[in-house]
């Protein structure tokens, strides 16, 4: 099943440091790193051959583990929903996810997540950054980290694309100390950036002429000047022109009606279908966000209406990835900033609960058909070895061929581990 075992991609510490130093930028500095241009040739080849991609599905506000991956029916905190059997013998999930229950043999679920922060405002960035040891610098979010460490794929498409409800834009703050360039290209409601289509008044020949002139003037300007500004300014024009070649990605008329029905016509379904197309087109890291999971009130009706959308769209996505053989090189992660309290509050809601929650994943050498860890019968705590988000980051980096025990960022002269240095990958999750 696995085609990307981590040992195959182990890079020596010296080589990795060389690459990262060459591609590093100062804190808050302009993204001067050359994607390719500054890499040592041998390493550039190795990176170019690495065709692993990542799809992160983020359920913002905190999906309830009890109404999804880790149900506790008929217990004081279990809530009204039943559990149902899955394609994994002996493993049950909530009845709110029948389609995913049928996909369980293609998934790995960790039921023993135990993290630190119960606040949205600080918890989201902590989880998104893999909660590394505090070194006084803002770490990049997962997508920015991958954009930096792996760069774009051979497609040249921007390496970190975020499909989200609401507004789009370029979200540079995800990049932390890596510098603005490694931020997320956010597609608000899956819409393309404005002005993606060239107006008829400019022929493709005329466009080519003016772009060549721009490059010529830029080369002349950059001669014997610090190159970072020109590199950054040239880069956004390159990306713009690559995106223009993929304008069909945003044309919903080209979608098959069967696909639309399978994924669902709701926001999450449409966004998930776009995510599949972005992955197929070669975007290195795609994140899909669903908002509104902070169910302090009316938790059960909320999950009854929300879970089917996740069930439908994520199961359709997993079917497609496996049918197309993309599971071999695409890592999929489904998570939030924390789970929800077993205790049901006075508003029939569940509050924030980082103490015992679940994360699901598949693809790219993740050992499928696995359930790691166990919570207490009432769901209040983890019964087995607890795993923090740092363990997951080590595991995911390993799955995509990055040795997180050795690889480092370089921030100015300060070397920084890419995942928490006291934590390690979870071997049970890797095949």
């Amino acid at each position, binding site marked *: 099943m696995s085609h990307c075992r981590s040992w195959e991609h182990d890079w020596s510490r010296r080589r990795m440091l060389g690459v990262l130093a060459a591609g590093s930028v100062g804190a808050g500095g302009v993204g001067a790193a050359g994607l390719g241009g500054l890499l040592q040739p041998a390493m550039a080849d190795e990176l170019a051959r690495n065709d692993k991609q990542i799809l992160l599905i983020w359920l913002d506000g905190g999906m309830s583990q009890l109404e999804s991956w880790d149900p506790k029916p008929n217990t004081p905190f279990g809530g009204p929903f039943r559990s149902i059997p899955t394609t994994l013998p002996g493993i049950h999930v909530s009845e709110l996810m029948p389609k995913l229950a049928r996909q369980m043999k293609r998934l790995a679920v960790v039921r023993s997540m135990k993290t630190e922060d119960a606040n949205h405002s600080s918890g989201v960035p902590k989880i998104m950054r893999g909660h590394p040891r505090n070194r006084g610098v803002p770490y990049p979010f997962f997508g920015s980290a991958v954009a930096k460490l792996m760069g774009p794929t051979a497609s040249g498409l921007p390496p970190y694309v975020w499909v989200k409800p609401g507004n789009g834009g370029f979200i540079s703050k995800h990049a932390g100390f890596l510098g603005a360039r490694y931020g997320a290209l956010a597609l608000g409601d899956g819409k393309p950036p404005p002005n993606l289509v060239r*107006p008829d008044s400019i022929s493709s020949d005329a466009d080519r002429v*003016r772009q060549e002139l721009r490059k010529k003037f830029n080369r002349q300007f950059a001669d*014997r*000047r610090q190159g*970072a500004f020109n590199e950054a300014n040239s880069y956004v024009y390159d990306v713009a022109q690559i995106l223009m070649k993929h304008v069909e990605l945003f044309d919903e008329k080209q979608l098959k009606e069967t696909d639309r029905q399978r994924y669902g016509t709701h926001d999450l379904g449409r966004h998930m279908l776009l995510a599949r197309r972005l992955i197929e087109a070669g975007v290195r890291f795609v994140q899909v966000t669903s908002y509104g999971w902070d169910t302090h009130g009316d938790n059960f009706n909320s999950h009854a209406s929300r879970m089917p959308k996740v069930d439908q769209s994520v199961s359709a996505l997993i079917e497609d990835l496996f049918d197309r053989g993309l599971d071999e090189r695409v890592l999929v992660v489904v998570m939030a900033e924390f789970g929800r309290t077993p205790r049901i509050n006075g508003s029939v809601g569940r509050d924030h609960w980082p103490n015992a929650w679940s994360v699901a994943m598949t693809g790219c050498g993740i050992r499928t058909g696995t359930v790691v860890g166990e919570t207490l019968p009432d769901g209040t705590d983890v019964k087995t070895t607890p795993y923090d988000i740092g363990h997951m980051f080590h595991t995911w980096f390993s799955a995509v061929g990055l040795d997180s025990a050795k690889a480092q960022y370089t921030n100015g002269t300060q070397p920084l581990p890419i995942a928490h240095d006291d934590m390690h990958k979870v071997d049970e999750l890797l095949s």
Partner: protein
Amino acid sequence: MHRRVFLLAISLTGIAAPMAQAADESLHAAIDRLIDAKAGDTAKAPAADDAEFLRRVMLDLAGRIPTSAETARFLDDKTAAKRDVLIDSLLAGEDHPRRMQELFHAMLMERRGEHAEWTKFLRHAFAKNLPWDQLARAMLAPDSADENLRGAAYFLTARLTKEGAMAPVDVPGLTRDVGRLLAGVDLGCAQCHDHVSIDDYKQVDFQGLHMIFENMQSRGGGTFPAVTERVMQKDREFHSVFTMDPRTTGLRIPGAGDVPIQTFPKGEEYSVAPDRKAKTPGVLKFSPLKELAQGLAAKGNPLFARNIVNRLWFVMMGRGLVEPLDLFHSANPPSHPQLLDRLATEFTAHDFDIKWLLGQLARTGCYQRSSRLPGEAPLPEAKTYAVANQKRLSAEQLFWSTMIATGEISRLKPKPATGLEQVVAETESLAALQKQFLKTFSNPPREPEVDFAPTVKGALYLMHDKSVLALLKPQSGNLVERLSTLDDTGKMAEALFLAVVSRRPSTSDREAVGRLLEKKVGVARGEAIGQLAWALLTSTEFCVNH
């Protein structure tokens, strides 16, 4: 003074006296002496030529590039003192207050929004060259009675608005911004415990500042922003989430230390009692905001002067002496400690006169160096200032410069006396274009505009937006129309480069233009000229201040 503040003050103060200092040495001479001493034998760029200097100083002090005519006049001026004369005329000119308003708006509000009263405050302040301490006090303890300054309250009130369901009013964010923007200390990570990696930043510093803003709220109802305070009666109680030990503090002001709370018997807290009917808030005998304003924006406060001189140095030189700009602490020393000390001391001695400081910075050899280093030597680090650092153009600078370069202003200016702003305000399509430029090229709200951060959105906008492209279609009096009438390719190239990149074309520029226009006549020639103008407008040379 509290012990820790004392230590912080010592560590930020220059110790050794600068060497070889003439008694009457001007600040700009001292800057060059200190920068050159530190740079040692680092390869240094030659002085910028007149064109490079003119464009840079116009962008910095007037917020726009020069017109072709201004450039030609300056290049052809043979008088020796022309650079000093230019600096003085720009500081006295009509563009300068607008530029300062735009600069300080972006710096202090970080794109949170606009308010007509705030704009009026900034414009008034810079038109009158009010000293920085007065501006800071107007922002921290706003006076509703002063019609020109009351809009300064927007600095506080804009930070007290709700950002959405998941983000309630962020009072800790306001506390953090006051420290960051007015004292150069980002205490944000010391809210719940002492900062884990910066020893100087203690939780008590945050809590003692934060209690001032917890005691304050926006006063609604008027057409102008305003705040009101409650009577403060006791110390703030807090505890570290690490140790859980209960502690208390009175007011603490960055760089100035503790201010004990003064209490008065019930009914005697006000010197002028609040009046509900007249809707006047009254005058407190002990106003924490006034204590903050007086303690922070004060001559004796080491952080206050250092923060602003470091920020103005950054604006002019492209890199702060302390970086990041809001992380002053003893483990993050300035690149040039004596220089920062000297800047702060002299700026304070000149009564926080921003215009004076900018004039001194613009006169330095350091500012007037080229951003290009000929030869083979490796390019030096930004902090040596041995080569002029490139700087980001703000959305405003980019907009005004585009208006000048494309000849849009000269096309529309009905009479010479009409200013840039008036032309744009009176032309609906340009006012809309200005809004679109600000939206496209500004950072998202709450993100400091420090780094150069070009975006794909910006590139696509300049590539495809119809209003942008319309600027490059020939219209009576605009750049492309004017160029199309020049049959001599050499003259056309000269006019094009002077208009857009504020310099005469090089030999290779002329060759490129010549090759493109060869055998093109009529419509084809006009189109090619439009392509050249577009390529220069989107070039890095135009989009950055170099």
